[in-house]
């Protein structure tokens, strides 16, 4: 079925803007658009938007169609087919490593426009993070690969399949001895089944699994502790004291959304509810460390000794004899270790010790032992069997050796850009050249695709059938939301073609598998239900409580190699680009780093003290030397960073990543060694040149200057601070009369700073919902970023180890809006429900409103940031929201388009709008439920409750703007023993 889409041809005819463009397209169909290689600095950032526009030529203007095979919306609309203008939500899932997050994707006329979390899915619970949201931008990227190229020759789909099965057949002789696969890590039952069948057909073929953010160390650690590799899954709702050993569980991983929800659920102070307490031991300030009640700074290599110190104290003082072996008397941080241990012991089985995937196996083994000893295993952490085999550098090393030995004729790569992600010393890039047939399934041109002889355009996950597993084993059937925009093949189809089933299509391959598994007569009915709900029932895997092998743990703890001497290099997944998979995603590039607020860049982070010692300052460019390899990078002095260690975020410095990602930041991966991929010693810094590096940060000033902005109190002091809070709320004397909002909706919002973890999910959700443009590094540097909701980050106290608070801030919808009365043309006025509305088509752009806005939440289109758009990019636009032109002011309006949609629906249904029915985009995405929105005239509404909360206060209350968004004070729950000093 084809529906007319705005800006789309429904007839597949060739469209072109100018003759020259048409000629160019004719001339070299598969070339990059002119200028695609230009660096992303300066004005050319806008240039790059134009490049994307030009590449509409390459976008093969196929109308976007719903997939051929029937898919099933989450909430069944009365008539099954698509209704123009009406949104449908489809359940699917995104995979991070082996674990999945369930999603609901909003589509209009069969084009996805927004990603939300699936409320029924255990890993999402309705929330969605930055990464899930950003997937959508990749889907529509006009720079995606199209079609199939073998040895420079384009192939049609059919001939590609034939080529693949010929290739497969050629390996039948020796049972696939010279056939190898390098696949991404996945929990998908279907992929596992395909792999099993391929192995059956080619017994001697080898599968290598690669995930650059691998959990090999976790599995190795659990293997040491339990005898077999296990996957720990945290359960925070029962945890009262949490010790995170270099584990950013709120910032990274497929489970972060659920964990944020569970963590925040226990942060509400007050009678009855006991707040949990979080200790974070880490080197660089992570999202988790920023919300921790106590952040214990240490080099990543010191985490093991700290864990052992805690174990020691538990064994010595609290009689947990099992830990005697792995414990060790500490030399430093004795006070902290003892306080933490005592606190853990105090709550016993309600404690939790967890370690991050960057930490060596020994740390995980100790953590497992401590949890077992405390009795928390099975309560605050549960274990499930993990798939065998390495997924990290080890597996790449094995492959490299095989290739090096000339044992590989055909290599099928479905892993994500291994050439870039592999540690430098593996040298995969050079080796690929030696493989006669190197197949690469890729979404975009990248470092790996350039070295492979047979490149296949991959279908986006939202375009292909598949399945995935949540951490607890529950399966989601991933349904395509539209048929591929560009000629491409899915991972499933590719692998299936090695079984000569490539032409059957992912849908049937998938259905066959599940039909055989369920073997129920009414399979088709169930199938529909699975698709609609986004979960396959009774697929969860039961957790186990395996016995700890204390001896092995002790041995591992003792025999753990001492860290190399000298300055420490600590490699981390970038909070925005992860391992670089989002380098071409403009949303993620422009998203401010949750801590440094840096955009379009990365930097080598180090502590103020260390910088002082080395005589370096922020912005200084240095040459980093490690194991004979060197990289040039700018420095950033990060408050709260551990001394004598340098944090190097991965994922930047891509060399083949299109205009968006190429040469943005520096590639720390060039320094990594396979045997020490995360933590290494002996780093050397040498200053390069005088010129300071120009960062583009959305926030340049991190001190509150003693102003009552983002308030933080210790739990104990809360009662005593009431009078101070009373000065920041309640009515003020005024000459102006009151506007009466009785008898109608009175929209309001409340944000709980105690719950907020500063993850920025709200920012990206808002960007997707409200068609907010990306402006590029040069514009951000000029402080012209467009995000409607920003997350302010303030540091206070000792710069070496500061207190950190995050404060999401969008338009607070003042009842006495200073922006309104200064607008000469009435382009921003109040609705009768108290919304501070922007009338874009009336705005002439005097910017007076922004000058007079004390919160500076208004954003201005200094240029035509939206033009030109490729045909596919246009499909991303939310049809309910105006695309703002140049010279127009814009800002948050509490997602007024969502309010109106629900109002209409309610009118049609003849009902009242129920509380909680309308969710703003930021609120819906927020994993920790820190945002509430609703009708303040409804005494029962959740938001009204928060407005009446004892912690409530108004931002800049004394100005008398009467904001509709209230804030709830952030409450810390420090350990009295560590409280001071």
């Amino acid at each position, binding site marked *: 079925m084809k529906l007319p889409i705005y800006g789309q041809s429904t007839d597949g005819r060739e469209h072109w803007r100018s003759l020259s463009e048409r000629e160019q397209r004719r001339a070299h169909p598969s070339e990059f658009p002119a200028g695609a290689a230009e660096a992303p600095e300066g004005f050319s950032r806008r240039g790059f938007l134009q490049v994307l526009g030009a590449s509409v030529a390459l976008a093969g203007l196929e109308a976007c169609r719903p997939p051929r095979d029937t898919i099933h919306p989450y909430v069944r609309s009365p008539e099954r087919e698509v209704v123009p203008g009406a949104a449908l939500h489809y359940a699917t899932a995104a995979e991070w490593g082996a674990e999945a997050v369930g999603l609901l994707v909003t589509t209009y006329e069969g084009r996805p426009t927004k990603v939300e979390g699936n409320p029924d899915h255990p890993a999402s619970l309705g929330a969605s993070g930055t990464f899930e949201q950003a997937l959508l931008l990749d889907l529509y990227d006009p720079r995606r690969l199209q079609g199939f190229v073998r040895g420079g020759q384009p192939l049609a789909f059919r001939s590609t399949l034939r080529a693949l099965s010929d290739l497969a057949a050629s390996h039948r002789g020796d049972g696939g001895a010279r056939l190898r696969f390098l696949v991404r890590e996945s929990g998908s039952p279907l992929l596992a089944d395909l792999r099993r069948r391929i192995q059956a057909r080619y017994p001697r073929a080898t599968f290598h699994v690669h995930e650059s953010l691998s959990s090999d160390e976790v599995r190795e650690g659990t293997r040491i502790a339990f005898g077999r590799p296990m996957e720990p899954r945290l359960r925070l709702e029962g945890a009262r004291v949490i010790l995170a050993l270099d584990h950013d569980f709120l910032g990274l991983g497929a489970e972060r959304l659920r964990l944020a929800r569970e963590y925040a659920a226990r942060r509400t102070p007050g009678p009855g509810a006991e707040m949990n307490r979080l200790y974070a031991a880490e080197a660089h300030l992570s999202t988790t460390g920023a919300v921790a009640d106590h952040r214990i700074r240490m080099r990543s290599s010191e985490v093991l000794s700290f864990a052992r110190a805690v174990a020691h104290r538990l064994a010595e003082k609290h009689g947990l004899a099992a830990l005697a072996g792995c414990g060790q008397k500490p030399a430093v941080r004795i006070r902290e270790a003892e306080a933490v241990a005592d606190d853990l012991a105090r709550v016993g089985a309600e404690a939790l010790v967890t370690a991050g995937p960057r930490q060596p196996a020994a740390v995980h083994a100790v953590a497992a032992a401590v949890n077992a000893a405390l009795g928390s295993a099975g309560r605050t952490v549960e274990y499930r069997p993990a798939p065998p085999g390495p997924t990290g550098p080890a597996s790449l090393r094995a492959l490299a050796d095989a290739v090096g030995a000339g044992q590989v004729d055909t290599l099928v790569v479905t892993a994500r850009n291994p050439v870039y992600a592999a540690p430098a010393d593996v040298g995969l890039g050079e080796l690929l050249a030696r493989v006669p047939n190197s197949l690469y399934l890729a979404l975009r041109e990248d470092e790996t695709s350039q070295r492979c002889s047979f490149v296949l355009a991959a279908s986006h996950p939202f375009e292909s059938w598949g399945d995935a597993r949540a951490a607890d084993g529950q399966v989601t059937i991933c349904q395509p939301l539209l048929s591929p925009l560009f000629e491409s093949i899915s991972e499933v189809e590719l692998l299936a073609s090695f079984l000569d089933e490539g032409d059957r299509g992912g849908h049937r391959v998938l259905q066959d598998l599940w039909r055989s598994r369920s073997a129920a007569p009414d399979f088709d009915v169930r199938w529909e239900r699975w698709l609609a709900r986004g979960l396959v029932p009774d697929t969860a895997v039961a957790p186990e409580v395996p016995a700890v092998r204390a001896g092995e743990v002790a041995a591992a703890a003792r025999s753990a190699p001492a860290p190399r001497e000298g300055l420490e290099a600590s490699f981390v997944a970038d909070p925005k680009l992860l391992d670089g998979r989002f380098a071409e995603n403009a949303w993620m590039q422009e998203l401010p780093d949750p801590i440094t607020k840096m955009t379009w860049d990365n930097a080598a982070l180090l502590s103020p003290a260390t910088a002082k010692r080395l005589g370096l300052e922020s912005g200084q460019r240095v040459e980093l030397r490690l194991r004979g390899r060197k990289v040039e990078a700018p420095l950033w002095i990060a408050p709260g960073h551990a001394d004598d260690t340098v944090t190097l975020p991965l994922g930047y410095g891509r060399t083949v990543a299109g205009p968006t990602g190429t040469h943005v930041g520096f590639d720390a991966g060039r320094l990594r060694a396979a045997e020490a991929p995360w933590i290494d010693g002996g780093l050397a810094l040498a200053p390069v040149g005088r010129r300071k590096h120009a960062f583009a940060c959305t*926030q*340049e*000033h*991190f*001190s*509150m*200057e*003693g*102003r009552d*902005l983002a308030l933080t109190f210790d739990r104990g002091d809360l009662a005593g601070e009431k009078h101070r809070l009373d000065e920041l709320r309640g009515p003020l004397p005024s000459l102006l009369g009151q506007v009466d909002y009785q008898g109608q909706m009175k929209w309001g919002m409340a944000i709980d700073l105690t719950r907020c973890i500063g993850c920025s999910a709200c920012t990206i959700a808002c960007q997707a919902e409200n068609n907010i443009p990306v402006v590029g590094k040069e*514009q951000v540097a*000029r*402080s*012209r970023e467009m995000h409607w909701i*920003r997350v*302010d*980050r*303030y540091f206070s106290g000792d710069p070496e180890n500061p207190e950190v608070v995050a*404060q999401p*801030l969008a338009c607070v919808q003042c009842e006495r809006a*200073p922006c309104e*009365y*200064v*607008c*000469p*043309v*009435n382009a921003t006025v109040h609705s009768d429900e108290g919304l501070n509305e922007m009338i874009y088509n*009336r*705005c*002439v*752009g*005097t*910017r*007076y409103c*922004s*000058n*007079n806005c*004390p*919160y*500076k939440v*208004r*954003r*201005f*289109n*200094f*240029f*035509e940031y939206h033009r030109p758009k490729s045909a596919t990019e246009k499909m991303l636009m939310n049809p309910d929201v105006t695309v703002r*032109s*140049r*010279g*127009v*002011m814009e800002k948050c309006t509490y997602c007024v388009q969502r309010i109106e949609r629900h109002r209409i629906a309610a009118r049609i249904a003849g009902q009242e709008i129920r509380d909680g029915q309308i969710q703003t985009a930021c609120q819906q995405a927020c994993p920790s439920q820190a945002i509430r929105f609703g009708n303040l005239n409804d005494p029962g509404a959740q938001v009204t409750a928060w407005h009446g909360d004892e912690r409530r206060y108004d931002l*800049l209350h004394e*100005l008398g703007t009467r904001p509709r968004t209230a804030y709830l004070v952030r409450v810390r729950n420090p350990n009295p023993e560590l409280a001071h000093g």
Partner: protein
Amino acid sequence: MAETATQVERLDPLDPIPVLAGRPGDREVNDQLFLPVWQQTRRGWLALFAITSSLAGLLVLAISYTVATGIGVWGNNIPVGWAFDIINFVWWIGIGHAGTLISAILLLFQQRWRTSINRFAEAMTLFAVMQALIFPALHTGRPWFDFWLFPYPSTLGLWPNFKSPLMWDVFAVNTYFLVSLMFWYVGLLPDLAALRDTSKKRGARIAYGIFALGWRGSARHWRHYRIAYLLLAGISTPLVLSVHSVVSFDFAVSLLPGWHTTIFPPYFVAGAIFSGFAMVLTLVIPARKVFGFEGVITAKHLENMAKVMLATGLMVSYGYAVEHFNAWYSGDHFESFLFFHTRQAGPYAPVYWLMIFCNVVVPNVFWWKKARQSIWALWIASILVNVGMWTERFVIIVISLHRDFLPSSWAMYYPTLVDWSIYVGTLGMFGTLFLLFLRFVPSVSASEVKELRRELDHEAHARAAH
């Protein structure tokens, strides 16, 4: 008033400098004052004109580029939503105040030293206001919709918001321009007629004849003319005061620290007159030299203007003092942070101190008669004051905006090449217009000088009679 003025002039031995050197006859007055119009175009004039008109060309280019690309080509951002655009607007409008003030207020007070400089000043006013008008029109994001600021029945059925100071600006500035234009033109009528009647060439005769509208110096003309001119003067006086007050409301009505200040209206008006007189001096001093008008624009005029600058300069200083006092006395954190930290120690501190030097320190040299009577001292000081008044607007606008309530939104502002081009361009356009004025219109009102001479003769007789 006139009487006392005369007595002062007669009795004051300390002030012997005349407002009119010698007693030229009517014909001489015309010959002398019309000389720049009738003589051949001077080489120096051409050179200057080449420079200013090319700068004006730069202005046209910069404006076209801005309109075509978007005001993103300026340095403005969030939080600094206004910068060079409004700085230059206020600066030019301020300069545009001396003209009407000299003509109107001094006329009402019958200050006869007004006569020789009022047309200079009025012309300067017109051209300055023209430059000022460029900025509000250009600074909007969508200049092609500027007409929405006028109350006309639109298809949107929507009206402008008269609570916005920007609307007040629209009315105030346009009114000021139109009234100044009428005032200037009406004042020009007799001289235009005289030009028509002294013209040798037919072309000039026709051209000036058209502009003279058929003035015949008839008693009937004079009767309506004099009262009309007086009324315009009377009406312009409060207008001058109101215009800069309204401009100051743009800031005073907001709630931003550094803007939200009750002293602004008087302090802006004082500053305007201050900078206005400075600009008059900057222009008059070279002009009288070049055209040999020392007899008409005497040292007395210059000295009086210096006195006015001293007085208004002190008012401005007082304004600064009150601002800072209020910031301290209010005990408001944001205010005191701005006035006692950001301004003196912030990233833009040098601009602040330059302002203090030019506007607070420099005018005080005019306490000394020597300085008031030294051409060079006057000229340099007048230029410094112009600089100072520009930096004052920078301090008020940019420094207040770049660090307001929430430190998270603080950001720096850096002007771009386009910003500078437009600013320099307006200087060029102003110079161009002024040179044309000097070339084609008598820059001192002949008819009024004739009147003045008669008054002086009259007094001379009176004195002789004693």
